[in-house]
């Protein structure tokens, strides 16, 4: 039995430690893997706000992940081709600056999350699962045939975007950025979970009638959670695109939405550190099982089954069972 705070700090320390150790021993690919973990964890942490705190099973969070990716891709594409981006009413220049790209990714994802959330939240249960999937699929098919930005081929960005004062081409520095953002978002979501908003959102999930009876509109609480959740996933998408220096419609794919859910459940639903544990385990499984057999996905599937059936609280739930709601 380990306290959640200790566990969280420990897990983050391990992730950071692995990357630093890899940097010290000149194993850049291990840093890349750690960066992948950090970014996927960030996306899953976003999803965890909707799914864990809000009880909104979004099967379409790849929508926001992809949007973030495309915001990065489009802005950087226009910067690298020195062409302005025509937004209809006005033109903006592309940019290779990470902070600006992040801001744009968060803003665009949040803006798209508003109408998507308004429509999707009219439904619940399986309908919600499916309508969120449908929205992601719409963007998937749209980007596949959107030839201006590469269609299915996607967009390559030749040089990773920059961050003031850092050399982002250096794997460990880029990892540092992603890791720092992850820590900030985890810290924010821990605060969010305990905040009045988190309390109200939790009530709206567990007993919507209660939330209403004390004067809160559960729909609005869920919408705000969905928007925050989407914005974080969008930020993660922009980072993921920068990790790969590439975006493609695959970022909108339903497999990715499924994987994000897998990460959250693997780690433990509504647990702050859950997404990091889930992402770490997933990337390790993918990496090490793949070395053992061509048919590694069979084993991945079986391991997932065991976890769903026998470890309901995910890995974090095994190590640190929850005592009170926001303990």
């Amino acid at each position: 039995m380990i306290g959640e705070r200790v566990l969280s700090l420990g897990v983050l320390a391990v992730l950071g430690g692995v990357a630093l150790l890899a940097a010290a021993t000149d194993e850049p690919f291990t840093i890349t893997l750690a960066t992948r973990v950090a970014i996927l964890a960030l996306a899953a942490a976003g999803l965890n706000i909707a799914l864990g705190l809000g009880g909104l099973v979004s099967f379409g969070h790849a929508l926001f992940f992809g949007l973030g990716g495309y915001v990065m891709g489009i802005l950087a594409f226009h910067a690298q081709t020195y062409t302005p981006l025509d937004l209809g009413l006005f033109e903006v220049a592309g940019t290779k600056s990470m902070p600006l790209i992040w801001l744009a990714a968060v803003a665009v994802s949040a803006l798209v999350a508003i109408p998507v959330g308004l429509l999707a939240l009219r439904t619940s249960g399986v309908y919600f699962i499916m309508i969120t999937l449908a929205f992601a699929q719409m963007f998937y098919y749209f980007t596949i045939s959107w030839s201006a930005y590469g269609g299915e081929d996607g967009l390559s960005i030749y040089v990773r975007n920059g961050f003031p004062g850092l050399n982002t081409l250096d794997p460990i520095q880029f990892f540092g950025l992603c890791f720092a953002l992850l820590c900030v978002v985890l810290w924010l979501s821990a605060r969010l979970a305990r905040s009045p908003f988190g309390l109200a959102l939790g009530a709206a999930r567990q007993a919507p009638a209660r939330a209403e009876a004390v004067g809160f509109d559960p729909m609005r609480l869920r919408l705000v959670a969905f928007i925050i959740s989407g914005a974080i996933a969008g930020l993660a998408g922009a980072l993921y695109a920068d990790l790969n220096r590439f975006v493609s419609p695959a970022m909108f794919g339903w497999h990715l939405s499924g994987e994000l859910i897998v990460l959250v459940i693997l780690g433990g639903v509504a647990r702050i550190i859950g997404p990091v544990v889930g992402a770490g385990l997933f990337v390790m499984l993918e990496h090490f099982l793949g070395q053992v057999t061509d048919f590694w996905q069979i084993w991945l599937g079986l391991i997932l089954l065991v976890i769903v059936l026998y470890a309901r609280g995910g890995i974090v739930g095994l190590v640190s069972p929850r005592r009170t709601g926001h303990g």
Partner: protein
Amino acid sequence: MADPVLEARGLSKSFGALVANDAVTLDLRPGEIHAVIGPNGAGKSTLIAQLCGALRPDSGEVRLQGEDVTGLSVAQRARLGLARTFQVSALAMEDSVLENAVLGALGATGSPWRFWRAALSRPTLVAQAEAALDRVGLAEARHRRVADLSHGQRRQLEVAVALTLGPRAFVMDEPMAGLGSEGSADLTRLLDALRHEAPILLVEHDMDAVFALADRISVLVYGRVLMTGTVAEVRASAEVRAAYLGDAA
């Protein structure tokens, strides 16, 4: 006579061919406990749902402190000062007792849009919540998970959350249901005192409690108000006896 705090004026509601409420008119005046009784299926739940905003009436209106709130949602009515308890506990089961009570206190502030400081480290909210828990006798249990509480304790918590709202009026849906005799007695004492803070519309099956507490009683039968009167009047009514007590006796 003071103006009524909560009023139902000619509320009618049908589900298909079933008429659940038929022109129900009653009011809740300051300082009183107004009990609504009636056999199962008399339309009590439908009435509560319409008063609180979960159901739109087919016709008629609901007034809260003289204002027409018929078109308002549950949440909007709650913010105007209508607090309710549920027949089947509606509580955040994974959260602690204190958190549930703080939720009510938060509701009283009117805004959940605070994202930063933890709810449990806001002294005013916690103080309000603890005071309410104290009054219902749950102070000791405040750090327990609701899921681990006994049925009776959950009933108490229902009332406590309503208390934290500091409302203008209470609507209580069978708060005594499933309580032992001791629990009922405790709650009866609490409600007795509470009526002076805000009047209570009490839907209850426990006749001992009703007769002990109610200033007035409305008898609902087949969706209609058979009569409204004092305890003595209701007890004396042959009509009520025939339609309701007679059946029960």
